């Protein structure tokens, strides 16, 4: 600090220290307040958030039919399950499952299965949505990239994938309409 030949007044020192503290606090507060918008601007913008949930009309999906809709950039499989498929899903032993989850914990209504159609191994989209597709050994979906087999509840049965196909947040707005996200 600069040399001073006069002895500093006690009041002057304290005042300076206080001002220094006040400045630092104010500046810190200011920096934090200013920093927030620059961080927040990278969060999804309003138009992206508006597309964060979609409504799907399920009235036209027949029993046994599967459709794919896009949600948050990923495919979502909606499966109108047949009684046989439901029975097979409910009948599976939890001990046989790599990622043990009961079917009733994966659906809200047993005839409607809603899942994000992205293989939990490395992210390919499993086959099984179209009528000619391979469905794998468990009647559900088959991922052609590395051979993961999913059952009629979308659970991993065979192959390298570690987890079941994820179930997104969704709700029934009515019998004919679900909202995903």
């Amino acid at each position, binding site marked *: 600090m600069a040399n*001073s030949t*006069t002895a500093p007044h006690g009041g*002057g020192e304290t005042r300076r220290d206080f*001002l220094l503290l006040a400045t630092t606090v*104010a500046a810190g507060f*200011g920096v934090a307040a200013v920093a927030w918008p620059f961080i927040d601007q990278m969060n999804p913008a309003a138009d992206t958030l*508006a*597309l964060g949930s979609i409504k799907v009309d399920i009235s036209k999906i027949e029993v046994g039919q599967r459709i794919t809709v896009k949600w948050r950039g990923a495919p979502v499989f909606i499966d109108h399950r047949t009684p046989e498929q439901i029975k097979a899903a409910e009948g599976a032993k939890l001990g046989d499952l790599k990622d043990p989850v009961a079917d009733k914990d994966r659906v809200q209504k047993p005839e409607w299965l809603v899942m994000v159609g992205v293989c939990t191994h490395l992210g390919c989209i499993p086959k099984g949505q179209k009528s000619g597709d391979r469905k794998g050994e468990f009647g559900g979906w088959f991922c052609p990239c590395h051979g993961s087999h999913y059952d009629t509840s979308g659970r991993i049965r065979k192959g390298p994938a570690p987890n079941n196909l994820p179930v997104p947040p969704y709700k029934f707005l009515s019998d004919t309409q679900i909202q995903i996200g």
Partner: protein
Amino acid sequence: MMSTLRTVTAFLIALSIPSLALAEEAGNGHGPVIEAQEWSFAPPFGHYDKAQLQRGYRVYKEICANCHSMRLLSYRNLGEPGGPGFSPEAVETLAAQAQITDGPNDKGEMFQRPGRPSDRFRSPYPNDQAARVANNGALPPDLSVMAKAREGGPDYIYALLTGYEQPPADMEMSKGMQYNTAFPGHQIAMPNPLVDGVIPYTDGTKPTVDNYAKDVSAFLMWAAEPKLEERYKVGARIMIFLLVFAVIMYLSKRAVWARLHRRDHAHEA
């Protein structure tokens, strides 16, 4: 001291130059006549009047939207804070009233479906060319930022909508043009869109051209600046902070320099 005075004078001259420029524009008698109006959203503490914005939206939707697109706005904006403040249900309903082109579907065709809040406002025409064909070659401009795209902003829009008059006797009107006191050149292709009673207001506001013009001008201001209220609010807080900060900094400066001034003047005499 003298040099400071000179500097301040020069600075004031500099500041006055923009106002001189503006005076030049409005002062001569051939220019458009635009009076300043009172707006609830004037700076620095203004805000939008929700009821006015809702009425203004009605005017836009029922009159203007027949020819003018507003493609930068989405239906969800109508429910977002700082705007007309429609309820989520009302926003869904308003969106669903519009038929939006979507597709292509699995057959490769474009199709119509009811609007969703995430959709942009439906444009009356599929493209500019179709708009011109329907309007004698004139293109009704998009209104998304109109309140910022014209000198005078909402004052100008209000003046224009209330500025339809009989042309003066010595003025020759081009074919299909109307006389308007506010429009530059005084000849406008748009026919007078408003007439008393054309939209029945339900909140007690008189259904006059004057009110329609006021309300839709305010609505267009919101459409151009939906963040205005947030801007004023954040601005007020930041200005207070900065004033406090500047005062603290000034006191700090004085405190630090006091040492020097003491030392310097201690050597005197």
